[in-house]
């Protein structure tokens, strides 16, 4: 048995070192290979560089609830994608220690024609669980989503709230080391919102690190230990959540 984790924020679990994400936006559309080859020879390939993230560095400690704030297009989602491994930085380094549960992937791959049961297995294996692990977890997932009576019906017959409940239940069934939350933290109706929040709070108490993107400044101030403010891909401030919010609002 593991002893209950004490929150002393000693151990670094997410390291971001000079990470940049650079998109090349072609100035003209070059769709065909032939056109590309001709232009390449003529040296007529022009790209506009777009830096979604520009030399961002910071660390997140184990157990922290870390907020990321900023205007639309500031690079918040890109940053989450780096940590969730969806993208590799164009330069710099990102490392993550522990199992990541990306809530951005809630319900990923759900297919409307498949039953709830089949979708639970599909979604779970997409998240990297084995068939055997999913079989062991299936009952507790369905129970948490409160969908026992509908689990063999095609998911197209579910309401959007029911689908979200199932997605949340799969994504959070086991305590992750790192939780990535993009806006939608609470799903379903009021009762289920409370239940899902309780589960996340419980995980956080037991040492789960949370990376939290939100536009709700009150929420960030209330829940986060620290926060980072991004502006046009650049890290403007990192530190106390209240101060980060204050600076962002004052900008």
């Amino acid at each position: 048995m593991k002893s209950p984790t004490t929150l002393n924020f000693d151990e670094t679990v997410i390291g971001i070192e000079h990470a940049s994400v650079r998109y090349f936006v072609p100035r003209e559309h070059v769709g065909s290979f032939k056109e590309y080859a001709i232009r390449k020879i003529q040296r007529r390939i022009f790209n506009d560089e777009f830096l979604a993230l520009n030399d961002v560095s910071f660390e997140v400690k184990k157990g922290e609830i870390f907020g990321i704030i900023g205007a639309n297009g500031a690079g918040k989602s890109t940053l989450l994608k780096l940590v969730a491994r969806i993208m590799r930085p164009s330069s710099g380094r990102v490392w993550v220690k522990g199992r990541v549960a990306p809530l951005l992937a809630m319900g990923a791959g759900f297919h409307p024609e498949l039953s709830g049961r089949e979708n639970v297995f599909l979604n779970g294996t997409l998240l990297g669980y084995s068939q055997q692990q999913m079989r062991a977890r299936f009952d507790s997932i369905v129970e948490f989503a409160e969908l026992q009576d509908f689990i063999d019906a095609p998911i197209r017959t579910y309401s959007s709230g029911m689908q979200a409940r199932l997605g949340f239940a799969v994504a959070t069934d086991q305590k992750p080391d790192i939780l990535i939350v993009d806006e939608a933290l609470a799903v379903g109706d009021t009762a289920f919102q409370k239940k899902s929040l309780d589960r996340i709070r419980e995980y956080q108490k037991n040492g789960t690190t949370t990376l939290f993107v939100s536009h709700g400044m009150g929420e960030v101030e209330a829940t986060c230990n620290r926060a980072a403010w991004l502006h046009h891909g650049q890290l403007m401030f990192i530190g106390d959540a209240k101060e980060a919010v204050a600076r962002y609002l004052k900008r």
Partner: protein
Amino acid sequence: MTEELETPFYDSAQQKNVWLTELIETLKYKDLILHLIRRDITSRYKRSILGVAWTMINPLGMMVILTIIFSQVFNSVDGYASYILSGLLMWNFFSQSTVAGIQSIVWGGDLFRRIYVPRSLFAISAIGTGIVNFLISLIPYLIVTMIDGYYPTIHFPFILIPLVLLSFFSLGLALIIASLGVRFPDIVEVYNNIGLTAWMYLTPIIYPLDVLPDWLLSLMKFNPMFHFIKLFRDALYFGEPFYPQLLAICTGLALGTFLLGWIIFSRMTDEIAYHS
């Protein structure tokens, strides 16, 4: 919980032997392959009345049309209907699985934006779906050949060997074209339409080999599908053992294409996230 004792560690700077990393990751996610295959097959047929029967009806329909049109032209072939059908089954497997594999990677968009999964997995599962469809469509093939008066020989089970080899070839080709297609979607269009159609007519599927003029016949050895089709037909249609030389050629083509595709693709896979 007893599993997951070791803590996973991800480091974006670890970029040595990307092909090996991709392979290890793919093996970790192997259970997903079966679920993706099942999703593809059930979702394709769930709302149709005939369901999976379509997999058998489609090649049969083609066979009937082609037999009516061409049996007079190519009357030298014994059991022309079985001859066409044996070619069509393999060709359909090859064309459908490569097209679906490329499609899943180049246009796999939404999922790739939301979650990390080794991307080659989608191509692999597309090939898997193709294998299932191929095996199902063997049923009408056997019925047709028996009506024609031919019965499967003891060499019949050996069709699994060309099936596996062609799967690797298809996977490699799908990965190569998908890698290019991420940057240049036109290439996918060319392959799906003109490329596959031309390739099909350049391969002896609906016509017997001896109708070809000598100069074209001598070029056939450069067509990989010519070898695969021949290997398939030896077991399926002619009911004969494999020629070792042909088997070696096909094995070489399959492994070579697969390795090339895998290496190119694992170098390109990071770029997909930047384009989707």
